[in-house]
């Protein structure tokens, strides 16, 4: 049936996200927090994330342009970004943040800029994928969500 097909699709989408390293086990942890009280917890969290992370990225961008010498500040922003990203299980993004952090440590402004571009790019990709995922998930319905916990 279509419904079960949808379910299968959702499951495989999620599996892909994991296999390709976009998501890690923290995402499962979020799913585990879902319950009757917060049935859409994961989606809400992810939405909050993208709002907040966009703000953070704007800050970083501005800092890179206006105050590129302040690596401490840049690193601080990045730590926040990393914290946020890791809290939803955004694995690849977290790694890019680490790279950015290293460039900050090296005080390599060009390296920071390049790294930041990668961060932006990964951020965009993840956003797309997760949006598609949750859209599908909404179609499946809360009761039928396949939660895989491996």
């Amino acid at each position, binding site marked *: 049936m279509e419904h079960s097909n949808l379910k299968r699709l959702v499951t495989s989408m999620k599996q892909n996200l994991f296999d390709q390293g976009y998501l890690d086990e923290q995402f499962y942890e979020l799913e585990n*927090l879902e319950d009757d009280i917060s049935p859409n917890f994961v989606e809400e969290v992810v939405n909050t994330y993208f709002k*907040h992370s966009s703000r953070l990225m704007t800050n970083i961008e501005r800092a890179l342009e206006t105050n590129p010498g302040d690596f401490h500040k840049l690193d601080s922003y990045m730590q926040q970004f990393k914290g946020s990203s890791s809290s939803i299980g955004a694995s690849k993004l977290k790694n890019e943040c680490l790279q950015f952090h290293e460039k900050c440590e090296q005080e390599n402004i060009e390296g920071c800029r390049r790294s930041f571009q990668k961060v932006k790019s990964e951020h965009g990709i993840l956003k797309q994928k997760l949006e598609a995922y949750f859209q599908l998930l909404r179609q499946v319905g809360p009761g039928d969500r396949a939660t895989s916990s491996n």
Partner: protein
Amino acid sequence: MEISRRGGAGPSLVTLKLPMDFPAGLRVLVVDDDPLCLKTIEKLLWNCHYDVTTCPRADTALSMVRDRKGGFDLIMSDVHMPDMDGFKLLELIGSETDLPVIMISADDGKDVVMKGVTNGAVDYIVKPVRIEAVKIMWQHVVRKYQRKEKVLEPVECAEEEKKADENGENTSLAEDDESWKNGNRKKDENDGEDEDEQREDSPPLKKPRVVWSQELHQAFVSAVTRLGIDKAVPKKILEMMDVPAITRENVASHLQKNNILGDQKQLSDGTRAGYAPVNSVSSFDLQGPHIPGQHMPQNQMNLRSGPRQLAATGTTLSLLDRMNRFNSNAQNSNTSRIVPWEQSFNNRQMNSILRSPTNMESRQSQQVLQSDSNLGLQATQGTSSFLDPFPMSTNFAFNLTPSSACPVNSIQQSRQFDQFRQQNNFTADVSTRGQLMNGISGELDDMLLSNLCQQITTPNSHVGGTSAAETLLPSSYGSASQTLYPCVGDNYTNALAGNSFPLATSTATRDILPLGMFGETVPPRSEIELLDHMIGSKPEDNFAPNHWNSNRNTGIESNVVMPNGTETPDCNKFTGAVQCSNSITAESSAAVTTNDVPQSSINVFPNELKNVVSDQFLQQEGIGVIDTELNYEAFSMDDILNYTPGPLPM
């Protein structure tokens, strides 16, 4: 959450009265500018049934904390926040409240984490925050209450002591307690070596330690000599010495250490008092069994609080033995298998002492023990796995220190020790952490042994019957352990020194405990527990003993099981006072349980405890029967406290 004492039937552990569904309802304030993290952590905490309040700004959080004093149990704060640095918030909260603060951040850099530690955060969680980390967060709250409990305890104890004070010694004890209570340990300090801070309301981490300089020790020695062994009670010694900076406790402790033993100097080290009052019981000396007709250096078991250290001189063996017996009687236990010393030691008398139920009666036997064994055993660390329901993770280092009383025998002792070691597979870990004394199996460092041998260079000097290695004494307190136990960390070395109330000397002990009172060679369980306590809670570390300590402070508990027919002490129970006319008669084996110890009597300042215990131990004939399975709580402080000084053993 209230702190209450629970005593009564069966081992009782409780120091805090926790709600049935604890930690449900724990009030946590989460501060993080990241809404995502706030949301996630909030959900996590909710799922753990905590009462969560979130706050995106540090300044708002600070106002909330200030406005709702007592409104939160725990704070979680992000490190990198735009309006205020997380460490700044930590500092402010720390200065205004005693709330435990946990830092959270994605930044796991060493510097940042270190900053959290040094600024007083109780924990540092790296994002993403997982349920596992959050689930057991409540431990920080419990720990805080226990610490507080201990801090408060002495106040009560002091008052009680004063009430119950019946003799001079007790009086001074009370005075000392007062000073302790006031956090004025400095007055106990003598030639200032290190003075550990420990005052105010924050749980003292270390106790100031009195350093017995040569001059001071000489004054002590001459006072004791003039008074005569039988009369050389700490109070009188103190009066004679007329040194303003020391207290009766210091004298008592010094007396114990030096009384006829002259070998332990291990006591010197400061105790790392993780938990102030109670835990801060610094080491005390335990006298080994007395064997009539023999002279043995009085073995003293020095138990240090803080890093639990059990320093045992020759007599300590008896303690070990006692503990061993205790173990054998006890049903359990974890760790404690004290290797019978007697086997290896060329100390037949000691063996007999250890086994005989009448050890206590003779000081002489103690001396005999001392002379024969001449080995001070210093065990550091976590006493009690047998005592403590929460086995300490700290290592227990057993140090053998040859008694200075019989320097000639040092080599012999070393050999004996080696033999003993081999025979009994007894090992002591000299390095900072060893195993619990009871059933420890640390390997005694050869290095330690050689150190020990080197240490035994002082001539036999007896003061009032005490063989005191005077030359060792002055320096030993702080340094001996270092010399002897080079691997030992500060905690270890400071065990005794840190204690502003030095262990009662064996002389004092003798005064306190009439030898005949103990039919049992085993120190009352309470003593053991006390010892354990004194040995040291690990403070800083997860020393579960905290609550044990607090227990002691509160005088809760007594699940001291008296082995066959022991009777509960009928001493006055008052905190901290060592006036026990009683007897904890421990029969050769067993755990002593006093179930009817009035709780109020148990409020004892750590020092008091220390003295009491040490006194008791010294009086004990050296059976280390420790019922490992009993909680420390089972110890009857009364026993310890209630010992009345008896005549000094000759």
